[in-house]
């Protein structure tokens, strides 16, 4: 694991922004959940060559948004077919999916705030599954050498 004590304030803020920007993007994107995903992808592209600490938080935010956005898109498409076009029926399977999507969104929301606060402190916060995958991707890459902070 990496200690975040010596991470410059600028990097911490960049890392924190990866989580906070989803609020602004989500506000613009509602009810289209893909807008915040596009914003996250742009943010990752602009910061892809920065430090591993920033990269970790941006990728963790991006991956979590991919998962929740996918769930939201499925929910919206399903709901439109049920309520607007009435092609499908309002079933228990739909109700269950609606609930787990709401829970996933709430978890994403809470975890993002916690992660943003931790990032601001120069610390790490690992989302379930995604956190570990992101850490391995960013820090276990032996070919990359961490440059000293200038």
């Amino acid at each position, binding site marked *: 694991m990496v200690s975040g004590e010596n991470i410059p304030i600028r990097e911490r803020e960049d890392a924190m922004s990866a989580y906070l920007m989803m609020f602004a993007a989500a506000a613009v994107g509602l009810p289209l959940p893909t807008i915040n995903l596009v914003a996250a992808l742009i943010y990752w592209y602009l910061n892809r060559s920065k430090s591993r600490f920033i990269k970790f938080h941006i990728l963790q935010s991006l991956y979590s948004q991919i998962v929740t956005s996918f769930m939201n898109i499925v929910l919206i498409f399903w709901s439109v077919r049920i309520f607007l076009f*009435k092609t499908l029926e309002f079933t*228990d399977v739909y109700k*269950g999916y609606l609930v*787990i999507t709401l829970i996933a969104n709430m978890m994403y929301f809470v975890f993002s705030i916690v992660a943003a606060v931790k990032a601001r402190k120069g610390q790490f916060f690992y989302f*379930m599954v995604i956190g570990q995958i992101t850490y391995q991707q960013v820090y276990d890459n032996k070919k990359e050498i961490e440059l000293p902070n200038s």
Partner: protein
Amino acid sequence: MKNRKVWFQLLVVVLFFGSIWGLIIVFTEDEDNAWKTWDHEMESSLGNLILENYRLNGHLELVWSEDFVHPDWVVLSKALEIEETDVSGIFLYDSEEINAFTLPGNNILICLPLIEFADTPEEFVGVIAHEIGHIHHRHIMKMIIQKFTINALISVVAGQSSSSVIQLSEMMVSSSFSRDNEREADQFALNFLTRNGIAKHGLARFFEKLNATEFNIPQWMSLLNSHPMHDDRVELVRSFSADTISSKSIQMNWDEFQERMSELME
């Protein structure tokens, strides 16, 4: 080691969300199937309340029931053998829409413009056969119970919620069945017409005309659209018509029937 941790966490997440999803399906199963066990007497009471509401707000004329057959409906009811079906009553309803719909308690309401829109009795009986299909499959109760809770419906029947009766009455006119239900009713209508030896080209013709008058929905939207596309329905009916061994036309003066029905609603 690290990969094992990821897999373990993934398993926990899948189990967590899967259990919630599964529990919801298991514990709400009764609610979803409630329409199957909904008491027929309660259904009739609910239907009568809705009928009463229509009567209060507009013109409603009984044309066929087990005890009464309007003279102009004798030929049609014989051709359809309605008394052999689950239908309790057929009413003419004062509306400007080309529409026919079913109510709880196995009643069919036909709007006058629909009779005027049909050029032949075969077109008209095709639509009635379609509505009998909705009754046969109990689509109406299925739809109502999906939108109202059982307790809400019980309070409506008990006369404790007049606002819900109005809401239900409005819903009957404006709501449409799911695409699967519509297809099921179409299929029933075709089998029904075949059984009664009635020509099915009338139903195909009716869908073709409806297709021409309604806003033409692009084909790419057919997956989302509520009713099966009229083109699809025409094709279904046409393919079914090709298999017909023998069918007969209904012998009646259709123009006179249309005039009489208009007079009845004046």
